[in-house]
């Protein structure tokens, strides 16, 4: 592996990080807290998101520890309920939804389209503040005693039967929702209006396409969740509302409104991750993404179809059988674009010149795990098998394969991929490859047994379970330990690399994106001169010609 690498670093004895870059432009806390620079906001987001990821991750650790034994041995049932609720809320709303878009997307999209910043820098900063407010509200909720509704807030449990902190959590998600709306809105405007001269839609990197698709979902889906939570909060405070059957409401209506957002939310989470994979697979196989247009349009197709499938979360909930039929059919349709993407990535490797740096390893992990996650989604989308498998550990395994196996792998892949651009320094390659492999192994150990548990019928959200399920739970917990190590490693070596990493130079990966054609870390204005784009995305021949020209002009 080490023999074949595309990494090209400048001569370390002379190379320096450019003195003038977005990190050093201004100093002082205030210059960060009042910044309009998308790269600084992305950095703020990265730090805060990592924090919440580790809070959520620790809660996951507690859950797995509790499930080591069939009895409620570590914590009482209500504590367990609070722990998994907080795990869900934090991971979904404070990590997965903003993870790739608000950090990596924020950082690279303006550069990819050749702009100086996002279209609305102040709104971008506002979005981060809203995120932080939401974060504080969640932390307040935890400190004040937590909430145990599950992240789905099912009415009438949430509206009537619990006296934990539903309101503060609901409002936190409301605020986080607006943070996500503003990010999405900003992306759409930027992608439409801020592209550099010559940057046509079909010259955009696929990462931009997939974030564009996710942004549509954010802008149109999130407000429905917001109003739903407002109605839940109202129902709790004035004791009348549209959800609780005791007041004449319909709890199924809550589910409709909730899942109208929360199913597309799954695509909000996964689509940007898919964008990362497109970038990484192309770069490390030195090839244009196979079937560029198909991949681009499949992103949009997922976004559009994503709005029509929400009731597949409700097949057993007493919705009309005929409605279930329609939603199941549409679910099958939305599964197809994902399959298209997987095969296109696989065929991007064909006749490439592949190297196996860390981002690529994570990307391979993504492709394998996402295939499993996606296929098991079809099990749940088919109405018949859904009856048996839903609300069991099968569903837990399924969405963790998509969210953790898919999204988190993509997030880590992207972080490693753009780390040199972000900080100007390389991460240590060997140990990070190890981390990628450890993560992959740990992940499979953790979540694969859960498919079997689910098929056997073990329900989700159980603090205690029948003893015959213990063996598989022990496996799962053991795997989670490995997985935990896999997640801790990057924190350590990435921090280390901030100071001791090799100087990366402009374009260590020899990648084609516009963001790689500027210095690392970039200037606050991104480009000294707005680039004029005259080539397709992933045009490695253009890159070679470019470099020849540079060598010639220097010589």
């Amino acid at each position, binding site marked *: 592996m080490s023999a074949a690498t595309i990494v090209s670093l400048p001569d370390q004895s002379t190379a320096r990080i450019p003195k003038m870059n977005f990190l050093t432009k201004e100093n002082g806390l205030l210059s960060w807290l009042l910044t309009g620079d998308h790269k600084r906001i992305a950095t703020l987001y990265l730090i805060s998101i990592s924090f919440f990821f580790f809070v959520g991750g620790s809660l996951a650790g507690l859950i797995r520890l509790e499930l080591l034994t069939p009895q409620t041995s570590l914590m009482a049932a209500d504590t367990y309920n609070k722990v998994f609720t907080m795990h869900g809320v934090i991971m979904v709303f404070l990590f997965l939804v903003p993870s790739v878009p608000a950090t990596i997307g924020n950082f690279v999209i303006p550069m990819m389209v050749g702009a100086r910043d996002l279209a609305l820098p102040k709104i971008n900063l506002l979005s981060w503040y809203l995120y932080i407010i939401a974060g504080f509200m969640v932390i307040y909720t935890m400190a004040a005693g937590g909430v145990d509704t599950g992240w789905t807030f099912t009415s009438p449990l949430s509206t009537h039967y619990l006296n934990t902190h539903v309101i503060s959590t609901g409002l936190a998600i409301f605020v986080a929702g607006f943070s996500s709306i503003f990010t999405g809105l900003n992306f759409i405007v930027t992608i439409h209006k*801020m592209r550099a*001269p010559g940057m046509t*839609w079909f010259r955009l990197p696929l990462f931009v396409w997939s974030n564009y698709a996710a942004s549509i979902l954010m802008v*149109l889906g999130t407000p429905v969740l917001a109003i739903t939570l407002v109605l839940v909060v109202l129902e709790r405070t004035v004791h009348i509302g549209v959800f609780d059957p005791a007041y004449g409401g319909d709890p199924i209506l809550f589910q*409709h409104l909730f899942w109208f957002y929360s199913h597309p939310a799954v695509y909000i989470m996964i689509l940007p991750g898919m964008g990362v994979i497109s970038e990484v697979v192309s770069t490390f196989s030195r090839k244009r993404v196979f079937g560029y247009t198909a991949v681009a349009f499949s992103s949009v197709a997922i976004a559009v179809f994503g709005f*029509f499938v929400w009731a597949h979360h409700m097949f057993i909930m007493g919705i*009309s059988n*005929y409605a279930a039929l329609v*939603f199941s059919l549409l679910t099958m349709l939305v599964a197809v674009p994902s399959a298209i993407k997987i095969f296109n990535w696989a065929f991007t490797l064909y006749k490439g010149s592949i190297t196996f740096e860390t981002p690529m390893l994570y990307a391979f992990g993504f492709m394998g795990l996402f295939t499993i996650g996606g296929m098991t989604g079809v099990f749940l989308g088919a109405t018949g098998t859904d009856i048996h498998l839903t609300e069991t550990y099968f569903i837990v395994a399924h969405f963790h394969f998509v969210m953790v196996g898919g999204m988190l792998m993509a997030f880590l892949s992207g972080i490693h991929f753009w780390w040199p651009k972000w900080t100007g320094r390389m991460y240590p390659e060997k140990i990070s490859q190890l981390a990628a492999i450890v993560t992959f192994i740990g992940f499979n150990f953790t979540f694969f047994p859960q498919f079997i548990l689910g098929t056997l019928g073990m329900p989700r959200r159980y603090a205690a379970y029948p003893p015959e399920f213990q063996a598989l739970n022990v496996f799962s917990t053991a795997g989670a330990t490995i997985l935990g190590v896999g997640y801790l490693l990057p924190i350590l070596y990435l921090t280390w690399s901030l100071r001791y990493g090799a100087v990366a130079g402009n374009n260590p990966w020899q990648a084609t994106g516009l963001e790689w054609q500027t210095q690392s870390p970039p200037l606050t204005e991104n480009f000294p001169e707005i680039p004029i784009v005259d080539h397709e995305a992933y045009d490695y021949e253009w890159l070679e010609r470019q470099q020849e020209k540079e060598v010639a002009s220097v010589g």
Partner: protein
Amino acid sequence: MSEQNQPKEHDQEHHIVSPVTYGAILLALLIFTGLTVWASYIDLGAWQIAPGLTLFWNPVVALAIACTKMTLVVLFFMHVKYSRKLTKLTVASGFFVFIVLIGMTMTDYFTRAWGRW
């Protein structure tokens, strides 16, 4: 996907709607408001499409008038008539998703009794 961000001739100067148009629209909106109130006092009857499925004309008329008013506001007050395609597409997609939310939720409610008739 045609629009680009290079300045193009046709939207260099964006269209300024004349006050006369605004006045006419205002008048139309007020007339429609009167119309909808007046219509609500008349029993317009119902259309029995099928047993158990009846369409009452009063709410239909009220909503049709509301939609007309909305269209006038969107087209003229909000300048969508004179805007570029992207804006039109944005407005259209907004209403499309709105209809999806209501319509597809209703598919559940209206078909729950099926098979039990």
